[in-house]
């Protein structure tokens, strides 16, 4: 019973198709087989790549045998596209379900539609039969709770009752969300993007992309967003899409048995997730390329685009917002912008960068508190308290009472002449007869000024509360709150500029481009630029941000302002700290993520390798003089992930490297299945058994599990090169030799610790291998 190391299509007990119809096979515990990885370990990219090449070669050689084999090879080639199609369909469907449910449940906090209980406020009002102009905002079919319960619509008691019920509903939703997460799928909390970044770089977290996580994340995301908390659904949607990707990978052995290929599918699934969150397929692919993926071969580019398109198309056909758009705040502008407006745009960029830095620093400090102090022991209580505070403070201000997406939508939209909201309370010229989309600049009425006050309060509130909300034990995203902060700031600046241009149109800065009676300034555009700046300041996205924003607005004319703001905010934010929010969370949790920054210090491999001077010597195996008992003792006494194999303890010339997990499985299986293998049996990694007297027990050949080509560097190799090798090849460990003799070993953890030390961070914060 030799262990299969090199072959890829190995028939393990769970995969054999038993014709006796064991329908309940999936209920049994799967046997761990050689070639799989342990939880919280890193994969071996080179091994996965060579396994896939072997598999492909086998299929290609078999395809010449018969027509059926040829068809099977075609199916194998097309399975990738089929997986993308399925991922797109399921992600789009789930996103549509989430959008519809969030719409309804957010409005459920305030009232209910009497004609059809499942309609949200906007859908209910669409079907109303009001005909007079003055009644255009009335909606008698949708009643608030106080009106339903008491019959009155005005009064202090009614207001208080509405307030109370709003807070009650918010608490109920968030309590339900955190309980479901806690009981069924604890991995469903948080945003998910830092963990997905780590998984895509080669880390294994079992259960993070499982079916229960998918179900609970979808369900609790709706509850969390509906409870009025200051969080978004974009990050969790990426997690949901990656769970769908993992689910469909298990259908095909090409992807389910190869961790490297699986990560290609997950990169594409992440693109589909962003695509449905923003209605931006191209932006989704670029986001996956820039932010989430680690290795992104060109083949993945085309497939990600396909998955993103299918997802966007599926969502569009569900049509959750009724206007054939994929996001609530889709706007279509045609008004031009002027060069002089670049100054406020760049100011918005600076604001975005400063806010990004402030948010990252405060949020990481708060999350560190949650990790280390008593605060982390009461997650349910924390969620309830934060929800209570959010609901109590959000209800009085009409701009925070509604959902954040609706707020952004109102801020992005320009004021037509028929708008009746407070923000659009401009003083209209009664003789004016211009069409609705070409209104000249007007002076602001009192409603606008009071709206500005309320917006400023909303801005401060959102800045503070998001710091405490992101990172709680419910699904929470970050994109929408950042965009809200930026949109509020942008709109305020836009209205300020608009009023300045109207009242002082003879100043030199306005005279050239703004005639009185023309539509010069579009405050909605400033809101969009502000949103892009804040989002860029927090996540440090560059190209993907600009592409997402212009796909959101449907206008290529605004690329220059968006880019100016995004670039400025990134520069300002980078001046204070190099990492975006996701890298900062990766560092906080100590994930083994080797990022793409350059390593510029002049240390050598000897400075980093283990064992150091005062440490015990390297744990070695010899090629033919170790017994089974010695190996077992070695495994028990140490916790290294692998052992180098040398010719003998005297010469220490390197033969290969063997993994701990493979050793354990091989010895266990040999003891059970092979005859004559006892503790005194000699283990040999050579091709032929060593010369031993006949009275000694049977030797155990373990050449199959030995990696004969481990990576080695010499002791004088600069660490720059070593880090580059680790990054480009995805190594887990690297052996250090001098004149052919084995000196030591460098693992990925050592590299990460060394990099942290060089950057004056705490090297002990690297937790995983």
């Amino acid at each position, binding site marked *: 019973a030799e262990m299969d190391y090199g072959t890829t299509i190995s028939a393990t007990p769970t995969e054999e198709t038993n014709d006796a119809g064991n329908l309940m096979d999936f209920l049994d515990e799967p046997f761990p087989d050689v070639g799989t990885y342990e939880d919280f370990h890193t994969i071996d990219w080179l091994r996965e790549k060579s396994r896939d090449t072997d598999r492909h070669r086998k299929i290609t050689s078999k395809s010449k045998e018969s027509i059926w084999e040829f068809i099977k090879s075609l199916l194998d080639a097309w399975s990738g596209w089929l997986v993308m199609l399925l991922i797109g369909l399921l992600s789009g469907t789930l996103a549509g379900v989430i959008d519809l449910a969030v719409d309804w449940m957010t409005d459920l906090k305030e009232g209910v539609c009497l004609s059809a209980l499942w309609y949200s406020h906007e859908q209910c009002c669409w079907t109303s039969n009001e005909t007079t102009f003055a009644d255009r905002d009335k909606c008698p079919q949708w009643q608030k709770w106080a009106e339903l319960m008491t019959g009155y619509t005005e009064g202090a008691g009614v207001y208080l009752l509405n307030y109370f019920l709003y807070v009650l509903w918010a608490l109920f939703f968030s309590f339900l969300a955190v309980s479901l997460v806690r*009981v069924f799928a604890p991995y469903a909390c948080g945003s998910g993007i830092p963990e997905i970044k780590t998984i895509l770089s080669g880390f294994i977290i079992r259960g993070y992309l499982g079916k229960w996580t998918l179900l609970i994340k979808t369900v609790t995301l709706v509850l969390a967003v509906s409870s009025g908390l200051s969080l978004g659904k974009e990050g969790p949607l990426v997690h949901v899409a990656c769970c769908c990707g993992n689910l469909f990978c298990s259908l095909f052995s090409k992807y389910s048995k190869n961790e490297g290929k699986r990560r290609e599918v997950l990169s594409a699934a992440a693109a589909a997730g962003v695509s449905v969150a923003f209605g931006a397929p191209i932006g989704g692919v670029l986001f996956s390329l820039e932010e989430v993926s680690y290795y992104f071969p060109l083949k993945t580019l085309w497939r990600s685009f396909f998955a993103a398109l299918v997802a966007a198309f599926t969502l569009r056909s569900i049509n959750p917002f009724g206007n054939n758009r994929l996001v609530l705040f889709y706007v279509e502008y045609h008004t031009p912008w002027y060069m002089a407006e670049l100054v406020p745009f760049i100011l918005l960029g600076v604001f975005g960068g400063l806010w990004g830095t402030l948010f990252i620093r405060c949020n990481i400090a708060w999350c560190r508190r949650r990790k280390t102090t008593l605060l982390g022991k009461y997650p349910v209580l924390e969620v309830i308290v934060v929800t209570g505070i959010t609901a109590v403070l959000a209800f009085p201000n009409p701009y925070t009472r509604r959902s954040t997406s609706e707020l952004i939508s109102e801020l992005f939209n320009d004021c037509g002449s028929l708008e009746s909201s407070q923000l659009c309370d401009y003083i209209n010229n009664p003789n004016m007869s211009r069409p609705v989309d070409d209104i000249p600049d007007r002076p602001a009425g009192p409603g606008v000024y009071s709206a500005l006050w309320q917006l400023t309060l909303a801005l401060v509130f959102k800045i503070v509360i998001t710091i405490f909300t992101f990172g709680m034990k419910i699904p929470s995203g970050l994109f929408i709150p950042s965009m809200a902060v930026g949109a509020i700031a942008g709109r305020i600046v836009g209205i300020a500029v608009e009023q300045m241009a109207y009242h002082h149109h003879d100043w030199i800065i306005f005279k050239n481009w703004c005639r009185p009676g023309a539509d010069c300034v579009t405050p909605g555009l400033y809101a969009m630029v502000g949103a892009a700046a804040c989002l860029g300041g927090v996540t440090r996205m560059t190209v993907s941000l600009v592409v997402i924003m212009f796909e959101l607005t449907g206008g290529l004319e605004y690329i220059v302002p968006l880019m100016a703001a995004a670039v400025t905010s990134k520069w300002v934010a980078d001046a204070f700290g190099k990492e975006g929010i996701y890298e900062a969370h990766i560092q906080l949790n100590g994930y083994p993520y080797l990022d793409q920054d350059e390593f510029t210090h002049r240390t050598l491999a000897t400075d980093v390798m283990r064992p150091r001077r005062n440490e015990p010597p390297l744990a070695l195996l010899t090629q033919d003089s170790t017994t089974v008992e010695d190996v077992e003792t070695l495994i028990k006494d140490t916790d290294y992930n692998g052992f180098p194999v040398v010719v003998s303890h005297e010469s220490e010339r390197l033969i290969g490297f063997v993994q701990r997990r493979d050793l354990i499985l091989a010895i266990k299986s040999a003891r059970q299945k092979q005859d004559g293998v006892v503790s005194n049996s000699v283990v040999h990694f050579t091709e032929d058994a060593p010369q031993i007297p006949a009275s000694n027990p049977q030797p155990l050949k373990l050449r199959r599990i030995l990696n004969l080509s481990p990576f080695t560097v010499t002791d004088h190799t600069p660490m720059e090169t070593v880090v580059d090798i680790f990054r480009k090849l995805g190594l887990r460990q690297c052996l250090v030799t001098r004149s052919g003799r084995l000196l030591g070993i460098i693992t990925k953890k050592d590299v990460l610790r060394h990099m942290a030390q060089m950057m004056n961070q705490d090297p002990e914060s690297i937790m995983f291998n």
Partner: protein
Amino acid sequence: MSSSIAQNLRIAAVLLVFLVLIDVISLAYADKCICPPYRNISGHIYKKNVSQKDCNCLHVVEPMPVPGHDVEAYCLLCECKYEERSSNTIKVTIIIYLSVVGALLLYMLFLFLVDPLIRKHDPYTMPLQNEEDSEDVRPRVDGSQGRGNTVLERVEGAQQRWKKQVQEQRKTVFDRHKLLS
């Protein structure tokens, strides 16, 4: 493909087909034009079921309150919006979502209330509490049986394994704060 995969695929396919089908039938669309007061005509809201390309003032505003030469000026002031809703999709989605939440709530109540009563004979099994020293306390009564023969025993075994997994996850995330801060 093994049978579990076939099952998953079947469930996914049914859900997708269901949702797409529901969407195709019973689409409701309407165009709404809001016209403000103009000279001596009071403002009015017009609604008509037209397709998207006919969604403009000329098709929807009927009867036209102004004479022919004023129509263009009047129509410039009106704002028309097109919306397409499928009320069945919305209804089905909300009902499916609420039933999933309800099912999860019932299962949670079952795990909290009914399960400990059933398992009262096994004093070491505490399915939902976190233990600090849990690893070897529980005697491995269920695990040593291996493959149970009846469906019920296998379901029990699978459920126990799932509970153990969730407990591990809970320890990692909530207690040790190793993952997800």
